[in-house]
């Protein structure tokens, strides 16, 4: 595994090559120097493993589906509308929501790195950060969607959003038919991370709600 030190005046390895060992060595040093607080690191890992994730975004989507006034606020001023539900932090400071419908399908990518709305979707999955997704989404979005099992008719307009700035995008998926009687909570349970990135649709429960 490469462990380049990119200061080329300095050609020996500064740390062990295994990332786990390198990480451990770095953490010890930073803690000993008082640069980071170990409890803060624990709290950060816990927050992103257990509190911040796509369930947050699903609640936003479900609210928009049941409350037309909220949906309007979400489409007009996404950051404020998302904050109404208590969400908002790093990598979600400037939110824009893109609405999917029968004739328009949005999907979000970051070709230059891996920008992603952390507060409402959590940290991105590996595929979102991978070269295949980042490179091909902009040139062949329909092919990419097909890989995700979504075949869009030719008359549906595909809009790819390349997230190049500090604006973060959330796709508001189309509410599936047959969910008219479902509660907001039940609807939220249907909403997937992939649908909020725009690589999937929200699938109705089999046969609708009993």
């Amino acid at each position, binding site marked *: *595994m*490469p462990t*380049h030190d*990119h*200061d080329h005046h300095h050609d020996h390895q*500064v*740390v062990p090559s295994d*990332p*786990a060992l*390198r*990480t*451990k060595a*770095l953490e010890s*040093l*930073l803690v*000993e*120097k008082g*640069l*980071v607080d170990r409890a*803060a*690191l*624990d709290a*950060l*890992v816990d*927050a*992103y*493993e257990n509190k911040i*994730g796509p369930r947050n975004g699903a609640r936003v989507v479900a609210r928009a589906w049941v409350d037309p006034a909220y949906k309007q606020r979400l489409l007009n001023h996404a950051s404020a509308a998302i904050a109404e539900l208590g969400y*908002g*932090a*790093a*990598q979600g*400071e*400037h939110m*824009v929501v893109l609405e999917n419908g029968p004739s328009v399908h949005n999907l979000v990518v970051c*070709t230059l790195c*891996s920008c992603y709305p952390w*507060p409402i979707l959590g*940290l991105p999955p*590996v*595929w979102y950060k*991978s070269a*295949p997704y980042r*490179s*091909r989404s*902009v*040139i*062949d*979005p329909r092919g990419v969607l097909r890989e995700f099992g979504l075949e869009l008719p030719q*008359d*549906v*307009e*595909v*809009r*790819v959003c*390349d997230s*190049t*700035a*500090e*604006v973060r995008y959330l796709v508001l998926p189309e509410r599936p038919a047959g969910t008219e009687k479902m509660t907001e909570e039940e609807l939220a349970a249907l909403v997937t991370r992939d649908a909020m990135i725009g690589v999937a649709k929200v699938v109705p429960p089999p046969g609708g709600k009993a």
Partner: protein
Amino acid sequence: MNGMHDMGGMQDMGPIRREENEPVFHQPWEGRVFAMNRAIGAWGKWNIDAGRYGIELLPPADYLQMSYYEKWLTRNLELLVKSGLVTREEMETGKPAPGSQKATPPLTAAGVSAVAGLRGNFMRPEAEAKARFEVGQQVRARNMNPVGHTRLPRYARGKMGAVVRCHGVFVFPDTNAHFLGELPQHLYSVRFTARELWGGDASPLDSVYIDMWDSYLEHA
């Protein structure tokens, strides 16, 4: 910099590999790297753009081979030394320099639980930046190839588009990444048709929306 990271439009990267029930972190060390990155960020020694540039400086083969958090780790080792937070010697020995004073971490566990405390803010509404473009206007993305950091993807350079949304005034990454000032300027969402970007074989309906700073654009 026309680097490996600027990969929009490449076609030979293989299939998209998805993982069912993917964990947030695949290994404990990934979580520690993520957390250290956030905690060190609280020192304010570098900014988000300098951090991205640090990853762009990885050699292309490493860039493609390393996992996401391995890139972060490698970048942070470099930036910690460059910023003076850690000396090269300390990095090598793994111990604080003899006689050095212990610092007080700016980010505590209590600061983390008030998650709002971790927000960044990249808007500069108070800056007196003039908007050269408005919604509906035809624009052309500049053909430019700076050797430093830029967020204008290669695949859009020289292409014609239309402004569809004004986001407000934002910090400019091309200067901020190099600590040359924030140079706040208007940011727009610009729509490029798939045919403009990729030619006549592309779907006539499809398009790519790219966030563009004012100085990436010229009047069409």
